[in-house]
């Protein structure tokens, strides 16, 4: 299919793409910045190219360095994952110039949907309703303020060049408008390099539902069911599930038809996701196009779990110019899947991202459990990139089975040395509103107190202390057996070095079968 695929990304998605390539027997090459020399994605690929300094602008966001790395590694195709350059039309354009295949849609399609204003026009052209709002031609503060007042409060200011929830600013009333426009513009410039804004009415308690499509060059547009991504914090998805619970068959069919319509009308190619806000769950529910993401989504595993399609394989097939080998009936979703995003962040501290070193790491496994991750014990979580560490996906015959599996598996997940949102994820999964599928995008904010507060019981605290004493005494016995005098506890800060070298650093005190 391809001689070698350069994976122009890092973290869990780079590891995940490498996995499918390995399955298909396609060699891969990783890229890495100064901050990622020892990262897991580098080890997951057959070759690796250093592409620059830690800041993304000097490495993962540099089209020139990615193209150079592809040439240096002998790659003939480039997969950009999500984030970074995945939706920057200059990458496929540069790939075409360099004679490389970009695994994704053509540059002009990415460019069209990359401008959210043009995306709204494309959806309207395809006969699909968009969220009420405006795309002011006059981009002065006064022009945007006028469009905002026409739309009505509350509303959301969004960067036209943005996406993925970055840089969105909610405006409750006119008093906030001036400062909000300035802030939205700053964030738009910072995250997308383009200050163009548009306005959308803020729909009360909407659900965020998206439809996965894959289109080949032979006229086939497959829709792979929908995902509900309503559990969000700060417009960032936290838990996703497929299918979206509680939708009437009529609404589900309307969503699928609208998604295929947008893709067909745009001559779409490769994998893409059409996002909608829905207001209600019945046949006549409001159903508004939000945007189309022209890349592999973070939450693609749940679609893979219910359809059996490997979406990265589908992307490679389409990019190689081959027809998709599946019929609609073959990929009809079965069962239910739930994905939880494990972030290095502090939910009790306003979800501030955490950076540092992972001192201990353990992933759960079991029936229906899939973990996509980009870290392991000793991994650095640099300040420069997104704080997503891993995705835990659970599949089941029913939503309830998938939910219970995810909840149990998260209880086995351990990330030590950094704050994570694992506890919050478990609490969301156990919350009555989530159990009964009563989710909307304000769910986390509404139930924050119940989800974040609370203290563990004394029995758990006692168990933790007992475990600490047991590990401590085991360690003391080992070190005193190993090196006699001076066998003190390892000095502070040595945890990671120890974790990396493991038993070999204290070989004298170690024997097989030691319990």
């Amino acid at each position: 299919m391809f001689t070698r695929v350069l994976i122009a990304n890092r973290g869990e998605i780079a590891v995940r793409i490498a996995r499918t390539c390995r399955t298909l027997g396609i060699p891969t090459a990783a890229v890495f910045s100064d901050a990622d020399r020892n990262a897991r994605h580098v080890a997951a690929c057959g070759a690796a190219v250093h592409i620059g300094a830690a800041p993304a602008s000097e490495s993962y966001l540099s089209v020139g360095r990615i193209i150079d790395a592809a040439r240096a590694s002998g790659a003939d195709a480039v997969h950009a994952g999500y984030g970074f350059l995945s939706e920057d039309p200059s990458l496929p354009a540069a790939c075409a110039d360099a004679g490389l295949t970009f695994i994704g849609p053509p540059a002009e399609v990415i460019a069209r949907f990359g401008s959210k204003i043009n995306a709204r026009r494309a959806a309207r052209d395809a006969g699909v309703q968009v969220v009420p709002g405006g795309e002011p031609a006059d981009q002065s503060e006064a022009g945007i303020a006028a469009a905002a007042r026409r739309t009505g409060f509350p509303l959301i200011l969004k960067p036209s060049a943005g996406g993925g929830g970055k840089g969105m600013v909610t405006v409750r009333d006119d008093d906030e408008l001036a400062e909000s426009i300035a802030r939205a513009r700053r964030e738009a410039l910072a995250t997308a390099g383009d200050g163009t804004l548009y306005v959308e009415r803020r729909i009360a308690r909407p659900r965020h539902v998206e439809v996965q499509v894959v289109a080949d060059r032979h006229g086939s547009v497959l829709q792979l069911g929908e995902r509900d991504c309503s559990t969000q914090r700060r417009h960032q998805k936290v838990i996703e599930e497929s299918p979206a619970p509680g939708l009437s068959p009529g609404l589900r069919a309307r969503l699928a038809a609208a998604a295929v319509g947008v893709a067909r009308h745009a001559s779409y190619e490769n994998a893409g996701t059409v996002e909608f806000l829905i207001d209600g769950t019945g046949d006549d529910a409001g159903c508004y196009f939000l945007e189309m993401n022209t890349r592999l989504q973070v939450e693609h595993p749940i679609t893979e779990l219910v359809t059996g399609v490997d979406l990265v394989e589908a992307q490679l097939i389409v990019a190689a110019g081959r027809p998709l080998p599946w019929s609609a009936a073959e990929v009809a979703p079965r069962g239910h899947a739930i994905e939880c995003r494990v972030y290095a962040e502090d939910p009790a501290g306003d979800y501030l991202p955490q950076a540092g070193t992972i001192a201990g790491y353990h992933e759960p496994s079991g029936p229906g459990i899939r973990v996509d991750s980009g870290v392991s014990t000793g991994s650095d979580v640099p300040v420069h990139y997104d704080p997503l560490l891993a995705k835990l996906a659970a599949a089941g015959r029913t939503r309830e089975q998938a939910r219970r599996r995810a909840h149990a598996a998260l209880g086995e997940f351990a990330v030590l040395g950094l704050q994570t949102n694992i506890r919050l994820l478990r609490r969301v999964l156990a919350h009555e509103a989530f159990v009964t599928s009563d989710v909307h995008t304000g769910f986390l904010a509404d139930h924050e107190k119940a989800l974040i507060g609370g203290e563990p019981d004394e029995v758990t605290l006692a168990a933790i202390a007992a475990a600490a004493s047991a590990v401590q005494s085991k360690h003391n016995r080992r070190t005193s057996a190993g090196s006699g005098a001076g066998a003190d506890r390892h000095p502070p800060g040595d945890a990671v070095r120890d974790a990396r070298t493991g038993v070999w650093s204290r070989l004298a005190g170690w024997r097989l079968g030691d319990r």
Partner: protein
Amino acid sequence: MTEPRPERWLVTCGAASRRIRCLGGADDAVLEIEIGGGDAARTLTAAIVSCSEDTCVVAIAGQSLVVRLAARGDGFDAMADGETFTVEGAAEAGPAAHAGDDPNEAERSETADPDALAAPMPAAVSAILVQPGTVVEAGDTLLRLEAMKMELAIRAPSPGRVTSVECRVGDLVQPGRPLVTLDPAR
């Protein structure tokens, strides 16, 4: 040369901290656990089902818990059932006698100046909007940080005058690092 028992730990989860004393039995497989002190103290028995350098299975009060641990300073980071804990060695005389041993203490005491505004997370300084001498109102933005594609404004908690700016644009700052010192208006 097993260390003398009992061991005293300060176990913290979120905002809650409890002092816990562990007394080893004849072998290390059974521990007496005492939570709290004085009349409120509660005693539990814990059996160590298995123990490796990073995982310990504890049977206690009719349930079994898998605890994952990683050494940190003179204690551990730990997780069980999706909850995160820190375990610190707590000396007999109380936490104060032990404070000097904490490797993070030096960093923390840097922020002890109540008028210094510190970085809440690892971040890059993206803009500084004030200089020494600037008079600010409560809520005024003093500087902006950027981390993981997010913008965060550091705002004045009270009216006052900026006495010093401790960072430059582009600096990578760690949590607790003082950024700006404010002399609050009296």
